[in-house]
């Protein structure tokens, strides 16, 4: 399979995920759609090519672990899990619904393929460190990928874990920061300046790469071979756009909260070129 074909497949997977996400958010009248859309391309590459996971054996002990530390982007993970055969497509209609397993923040209980429940920010990287340490101590080869939000880098617990991983040379751990630069009320720089963010992770001892978090080839090549440096955990600073893929949502804080009305759903789906 040539790279070009692979990229086209990845793009199609990402498009499908975006369609699921906007439909789910519309039906659920849920918020956080902008946060979900900003990580779609990262998740598409992770689940299509990078993560060694198996839907027919979701608890395979040697599977790679993926933790969505920014648990509010749950819709995106549920959608990719459906596309990869972990959960039935019909279950996506139950997102946010009474009696459903699909909570607004990612939940392991009752959802095949989810390794950790999150929702409160600043928890994922620490749990990921524990899993990566377990792999090391058990001499297992699985890797641990943790997807964080940029706002989550405000949390002290994130930096406790950031200190820990290089100290213990957890080179089987990858932190991916979804750096869309918008948090709840304002930009990250206005709220609690993170810059120079890459330098901070470097200073803590991580091997750091900055990429365009929507460039599928760039994501692929960044995650293809882990670790980048033996003995160091890897940190991908993924520059992204909140609401990516639906122009009227892009870079707008409003879509951290607002839910789609019927007209907006149609406009979004038209942009996403839903066949038929």
């Amino acid at each position, binding site marked *: 399979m040539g790279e070009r074909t692979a990229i086209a497949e990845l793009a199609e997977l990402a498009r499908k995920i975006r369609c699921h996400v906007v439909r789910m958010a519309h039906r659920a009248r849920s918020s956080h759609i902008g946060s979900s859309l900003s990580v779609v391309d990262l998740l598409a590459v992770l689940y299509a090519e990078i993560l060694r996971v198996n839907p027919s054996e979701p608890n395979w002990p040697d599977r790679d672990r993926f933790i969505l530390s920014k648990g509010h982007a749950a819709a995106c993970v549920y959608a990719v899990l459906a596309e990869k055969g972990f959960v039935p497509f019909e279950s996506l209609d139950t997102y946010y619904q009474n009696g459903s397993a699909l909570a607004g923040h990612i939940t392991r*209980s009752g959802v095949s393929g989810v390794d950790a429940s*999150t929702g409160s920010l600043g*928890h994922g990287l*620490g749990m990921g460190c524990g899993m990566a340490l377990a792999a090391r*101590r058990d001499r297992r080869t699985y890797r641990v990928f943790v997807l964080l939000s940029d706002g989550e880098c405000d949390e002290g*617990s994130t930096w406790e874990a950031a200190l*820990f991983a290089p100290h213990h040379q957890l080179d089987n751990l990858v932190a991916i920061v979804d750096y869309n630069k918008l948090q709840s009320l304002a930009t990250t720089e206005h709220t609690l300046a993170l810059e120079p963010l890459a330098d901070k992770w470097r200073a803590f001892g991580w091997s750091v790469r900055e990429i365009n978090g929507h460039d599928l080839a760039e994501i692929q090549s960044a995650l293809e071979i882990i670790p980048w440096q033996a003995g160091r955990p890897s940190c991908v600073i993924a520059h992204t756009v909140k609401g990516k893929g639906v122009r009227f949502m892009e870079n707008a804080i409003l879509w951290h909260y607002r839910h789609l009305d019927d007209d907006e759903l149609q406009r979004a789906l038209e942009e996403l070129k839903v066949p038929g």
Partner: protein
Amino acid sequence: MKTEFINTLLKLAESDERIHLVVGDVGFGLVEPFAGRFPNRFLNAGVAEQNMTAIAAGLAMCGKVVFTYSIGNFPTLRCLEQIRSDVCYHEADVKIVSVGGGLGYGALGISHHATEDIAVMRALPCMTVVVPGDPIEAGLATRALVDHPGPAYLRLGTRGEPPVHKADVSFRLGEAIRVTEEGVITLIATGTMLHNTAQAAERLAQKGIQARVLSMHTVKPLDVEAVLAAARETDAIFTLEEHSILGGLGSAVAETLAESRLHVWFKRLGIPPNFTSVVGSHEYLKQTYLLSVEGIVKQIASSLCCWGLSNSDAELSCGAAAARVS
């Protein structure tokens, strides 16, 4: 108690490779033998209790039985949300160990007094709460928790607590141990109050008041049957804990009694729910809060007198006892 804890853990770890010990930069003079014997199963997470707890959860989710270890409030309140969301919600096999529970760190001050921890831990779903009453219980509790899957809180004293039980005492999680058999009143003690409670019972017996003493080492799940039996078979129940009177053992027993159809006199003995500026040793503080042997006898005598249950012994007279309590 911490000596029995670590010795038991060392012994168990020899045959159980799942056992990990993760400390928050404490345990000088205590954890070194474990760290030396099992370097691959020991971890000093640094002064970072949130991360210590999250790492423990991550390790447990990969099949380990993880003991986190620190002092006072640090392994509980400092990282409460990690305990709730990372440990409890995942039903992770993490046992949180705190030493110096209650006023054990004495003159170090309020920051080091763990006096609300039982209440907070008890409220968490899936959490078992164990508060051993003497070194023998501490060792047996450690052993029992390794065999008990899921989250647990083990609240220990410090070092050198006098034994109350004999080594062959029968210990099961969730089952109170009877320290004395029959009595007209029941004293339910947990943790570091057990020894003083047993001594107070002896004093009361000398005054003609026989007390049934229960060691309620497991505060959650509470031994409801033992509480109800005490309510049916004795005239009054006192709870004794080195903890705020809000939310701990006393509250757990009160909840049980309130939902029963039984009528029994009841009083919680513990620490008032406010900060004081009193500085002093563990013993001094226990005296201050009337949790010394003498203080317990006085409080019980006063209550029995007020309830009209005491005999005419002058030393138990209502006025005198009440005056000392106030």
